[in-house]
């Protein structure tokens, strides 16, 4: 793990006396898509904000490509849960604003061409001149995706990007993001509490217990072959064991393990579980 491209090393955060989490470590390899799953309030957004540089950890560091980083930077793009578009700018204006930040020397036309191209990749060619208020929830989130991807970030961070959308739109966007981001082209870190979303998109799924004093109980390796698509995912052999394992975690273990770090626990060695280990793992559920 020490050799991961991105490495989160023993970060801690607390509000008042209650630790949200402490001694939390994990790594993400280049080109990998990692998903963090956990219940509301366990500290997922806090972790993502630390990765984005929007918040500083109380302890611990973030190492990217061998360099310790602090504060936000253009090589880490964020897709926010609430899309966070500027409502006074058009869809095109929002993407162009980001592109202008990335490429201060580009000409106006160059920016516009790129911004239009970015919107086209998310199917919004015809909505370029519309303001966010005139767009549906799914379209707004698409603009957010176009804005983030147009930066060609080294790391793409997503905080429950689809949780505010209806099921149908969510599914379509999941497939689109899977096509745009999955398969090793883009290093990404996504927060979700949708199990199928994690299975569809992630190479590795980080399971976080409930808080306070939440911890990473395990990392599940998703061995389902790519390319994956939602329509056929559940026909893949190995899909149900994987899904059941994660649902089990969310339903029972995340609660039972909350604040129950095993004796001698350090956050440095989070067990990595493969589907072949599932049976063995279930034996270890605390009574």
């Amino acid at each position: 793990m020490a050799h991961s491209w991105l490495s989160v090393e023993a970060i801690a955060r607390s509000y008042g006396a209650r630790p949200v989490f402490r001694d939390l470590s994990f790594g993400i390899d280049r080109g990998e898509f990692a998903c963090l799953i956990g219940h509301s309030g366990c500290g997922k957004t806090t972790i993502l904000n630390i990765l984005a540089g929007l918040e500083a950890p109380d302890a611990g560091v973030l190492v990217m490509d061998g360099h310790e980083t602090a504060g936000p930077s253009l090589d880490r793009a964020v897709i926010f849960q609430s899309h966070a578009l500027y409502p006074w700018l058009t869809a095109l204006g929002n993407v162009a604003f980001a592109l202008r930040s990335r490429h201060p020397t580009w000409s106006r036309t160059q920016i516009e061409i790129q911004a239009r191209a970015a919107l086209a990749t998310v199917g919004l060619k015809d909505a370029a001149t519309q303001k966010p208020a005139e767009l549906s929830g799914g379209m707004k989130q698409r603009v957010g995706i176009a804005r983030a991807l147009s930066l060609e970030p080294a790391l793409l961070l997503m905080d429950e990007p689809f949780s505010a959308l209806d099921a149908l739109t969510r599914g379509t966007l999941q497939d689109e993001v899977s096509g745009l981001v999955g398969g090793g082209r883009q290093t990404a870190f996504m927060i979700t509490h949708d199990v199928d979303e994690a299975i569809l998109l992630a190479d590795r799924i980080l399971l976080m217990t409930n808080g306070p004093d939440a911890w990473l109980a395990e990392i599940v390796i998703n061995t389902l072959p790519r390319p994956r698509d939602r329509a056929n995912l559940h026909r893949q052999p190995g899909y149900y064991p994987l899904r059941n394992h994660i649902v089990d975690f969310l339903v029972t273990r995340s609660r039972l393990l909350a604040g129950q770090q095993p004796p001698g626990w350090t956050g440095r060695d989070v067990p990595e579980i493969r589907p072949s280990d599932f049976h063995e793992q279930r034996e270890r559920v605390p009574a």
Partner: protein
Amino acid sequence: MTRFAAPFLSIVLLALLLGVWQISVHDTQPAAGMDPEYAKLMGLQATAGKSAIPTPLDVAAKLVQAIRDPFYDHGPNDKGIGIQLAYSLGRVLLGFGLAMIVAVPLGFLIGMSPLMGAALNPFIQVLKPISPLAWMPLALYTIKDSDQSAIFVIFICSVWPMLVNTAFGVSGVRREWLNVARTLEVGPLRRALRVILPAAAPTIFTGMRISIGIAWLVIVAAEMLVGGTGIGYFVWNQWNNLSLADILMGILLIGVVGMALDRALAAAATSVAWRE
């Protein structure tokens, strides 16, 4: 039809008002038993059985006459209504403009820094409720020039709503919008102009609209005090001339110009408004 219902009703009400006014003023008897001195003072109106209150037609005639030649200048006490309004508008816009130059940047500072906000808050709380006219003697004493004093008074009454609203708008800019700017490494100036300013603009314009309304209220009073020129002085001067028709015309014009100022700022506010 519903679209025209309200304007139609407005016109009916106006006609009703003018009709009642015309009838009640027209046929008044000569004031019996009036103090002869006072009757002499009131002139024809009292002695010839004509009411002291002009009829709507009198006012309309005055208005037509004033609008026909609005810019004549026959010395200090006799200027066209256009010139008087221009003086008042000039003072208001100058005082308002100066207030804007001070209030918007200062409001930005207060809105961005909770410390500055807390430190300046007691001053604002004390200064805000002071009637602008209470500043007048101090202004006249320190500035000496009456014209500049009037502008100062406009400044001091316009500054607070803009300052408070700018600070409120700036401090209320969504954290996530600022976070987007942070992840994009947007510099402080670009962030102020491209993120915070547009986000806070509707609130700032609301403050401006309140300010210009107050400024227009105050200029009339201020000009009555300092004299010389302006629509406020015009109304006061016509009181000294006992020309109620001119006074009513002045009042009407003050209302109309005030409404025009408000409409102009409302239009400007619409142009920067955004919907989520």
